[in-house]
């Protein structure tokens, strides 16, 4: 048994860290917000050049063919610097579902272009409000006339090149692959709580689209696996964010004087941050185990991922809130850096469903075991 990253994985983390620290600075984030940029194109380009975007895409489809563990290592750095990129949409969710459910031809067509960063892809499952374990069959429908219906919110939907869209086809759940660069798709940008991660509403009206289907592929299963996979990877993004919040708060508390003492010398602040540390390390331990399970097809993968997501949700929620609290008034200003994480935390919580949904999944998995 060895519960530690390999030397190669550590080197990968270092590389990713170096790049992100240099490019994705807080001032860069402020600039992107002011410019209302869709995403950080410079960073995306850099990541593509270093091969990070194709880290977990199989070699035969233009990727590097590393495991979920390596992708998770990169995700942690993305989270640490609150990067403004379609990482989860394109290289985690869309790439995975195409890999799982696409035909050889679909994979050959799209995965290399995702890996190289040439195109940005997204996965769209939502049709309005609600956080459900078993959502109803999508209203969006694919038939011989094409794809029709509305999807919202779609991450990066107004500028992505490609979308995998959940829809109904012959009365069953199906996955449609849509080229978003074609005419006739109505795209409306939504107002996003995370100012660095944009969303859109997409309306299709007999839009040409193809089914994503391997002969024996069950769309429900592919979707389930993709969302689980994303949960495992996003947990590391949450952990990266948690760690940034923890040490940002710690550092500020050691700088700020209050009533003639360091703010960080007050037990209320010490205990608050110690509790964040505890949540962080619990989440990290669970996330490491879950990604190992994922990479090794362990029998308790589903359970381990649910555990990992629950503790990552808990850690980042507390860290993002209390980081602002420790900063006091200054944290409420745009010039401070707390707000990036305060917003991103909610986004990552909303992206794949909250505590209720994953608790349900976990208890079901434990009962089934």
């Amino acid at each position, binding site marked *: 048994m060895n519960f530690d990253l390999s030397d190669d994985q550590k080197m990968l983390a270092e590389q990713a860290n170096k790049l992100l620290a240099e490019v994705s600075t807080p001032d860069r984030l402020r600039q992107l917000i002011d410019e209302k940029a869709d995403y950080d194109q410079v960073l995306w380009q850099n990541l593509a050049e270093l091969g990070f975007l194709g880290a977990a895409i199989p070699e035969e489809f233009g990727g590097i063919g590393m495991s979920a563990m390596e992708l998770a290592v990169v995700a942690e750095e993305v989270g640490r610097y609150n990067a403004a990129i379609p990482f989860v949409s394109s290289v985690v969710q869309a790439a995975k579902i195409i890999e799982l459910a696409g035909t050889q031809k679909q994979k050959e067509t799209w995965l290399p272009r995702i890996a190289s960063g040439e195109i940005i892809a997204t996965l769209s499952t939502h049709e309005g409000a609600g956080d459900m374990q078993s959502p109803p069959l999508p209203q969006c429908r694919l038939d011989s006339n094409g794809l029709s219906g509305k999807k919202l*919110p779609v991450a990066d939907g107004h500028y992505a090149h490609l979308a995998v869209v959940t829809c109904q086809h012959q009365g069953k759940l199906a996955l449609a692959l849509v080229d978003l660069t074609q005419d006739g798709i109505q795209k409306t940008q939504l107002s996003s709580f995370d100012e660095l991660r944009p969303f859109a509403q997409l309306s299709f009206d007999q839009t040409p689209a193809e089914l994503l289907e391997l002969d024996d592929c069950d769309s429900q299963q592919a979707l389930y696996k993709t969302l689980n996979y994303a949960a495992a990877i996003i947990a590391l993004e949450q952990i990266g964010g948690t760690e940034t919040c923890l040490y940002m708060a710690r550092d500020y508390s050691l700088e700020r004087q*209050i009533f003639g003492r360091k703010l960080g010398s007050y037990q209320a602040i010490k205990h608050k941050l110690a509790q964040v540390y505890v949540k962080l390390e619990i989440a990290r331990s669970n996330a490491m185990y879950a990604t190992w399970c994922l990479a090794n097809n362990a029998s308790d993968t589903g359970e381990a991922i649910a555990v990992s997501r629950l503790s990552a949700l808990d850690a980042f929620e507390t860290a993002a809130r209390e980081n602002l609290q420790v900063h*006091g008034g200054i944290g409420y*200003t*745009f010039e401070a850096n707390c707000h990036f994480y305060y917003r991103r935390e909610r986004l990552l919580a909303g992206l794949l469903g909250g505590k209720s949904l994953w608790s349900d999944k976990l208890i079901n998995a434990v009962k089934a075991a």
Partner: protein
Amino acid sequence: MDFNDTPDEAAFRSEVSQWLMQNAPEFTITADTKEQEFVAKAKAWQAKKAEAGYAGIRLPKDVGGRAGSEMESILFDTEEGKYELPLGPVVGIGQSMAIPVIRKHGTEDQLKRFAEPTLKGDITWCQLFSEPAAGSDLAGLRTKAVKDGDEWVVNGQKVWSSWAHHADWGILLARTDPTVAKHKGLTFFLIDMKSPGIDIRPIRQISGESDFNETFMTDVRIPDKYRIGEVGEGWACAMTVLTSERLSSAELKESESVDYLIELAAQTPGDRGTALDNDCVRERLAYWYSLEQGQKNFHLRMLTKLSQGSGPGAEASLLKLVYAQRLQQSAGFGMEIQGLSGLATSPSDHAAEEMQKTYIWSTAMRVAGGADEVLLNQIAERVLGMPGEMRGDKNIPFNELA
């Protein structure tokens, strides 16, 4: 114990309620009311109330008040709260901070000069207390005022002064003697916000709004007649202001209430029908509802005490503490139950947007007017009689602190 009105209370309530029905509607605002219009309406509404004798219910008649009882004031506020009126800091700071401090620590001339125009909405106020390095530790402030003949020359920087850009006057706390311990070297002033040397810059907040300001003061001159209380009495004056602030923070926006969230959950699809059919959603909302009711009922207990003549003690701190923490948790949860739609909203989705705003605003509430941790200290020390924190600044002259 009796939550029903006494006959006198019922009569007053009915009188107020009729007056409001006739007069309030033309002053009401909506979420879309623009800032300038809000300010204009706020002043006009204040004037209307003053005219009818409802502006300073507890104040004596010779300063434009009504000389009414505490309970009358409570009843008026309750009835007034039923309309969406332009209340809040624009006229509120004058009524709930400036007049009380002038009354308690100022001269009769000062009270005459400011009370009536403030009650009428002719003069509006802002508060110049906090500084970048003096928030919870307010007495650590650095803005200095130096006596020069009959005037004081003020230099320094204040922060978090809400609505300063609309205010006519400010209440200012400044250091007049750096050679004594930090609480002892402070003096309280009224400052004309149109004075030369005042530069007001909006702060870009994480909400995207800029309703707070930084106020820079460079050689601003204040005539000594606008000093409140004695030189060195500033801390006591500030405490008067903060105490009267404490009880007034119990007003909730409708979208901040748990009722609103219950409604939202009932309209959001969920696995069992709506989100409100989830037991866990029910349990959380019920818990927050019990806190919100507790806050309301505790507030009524405090008002009863007030009407019996005993002022709000440190225990009133719990009102804001309970409110702000609950607000952050419940708004965060309100976003969560909507799933991704709680985070990326169509222009028409008013509820989701309100939830987001509240989630941001709650971070300010957890800090402003006493951070959570400061309030817990106050309760532990002043209510439970536990020891004060060990301090590094006790009895040390301000200019010798590290």
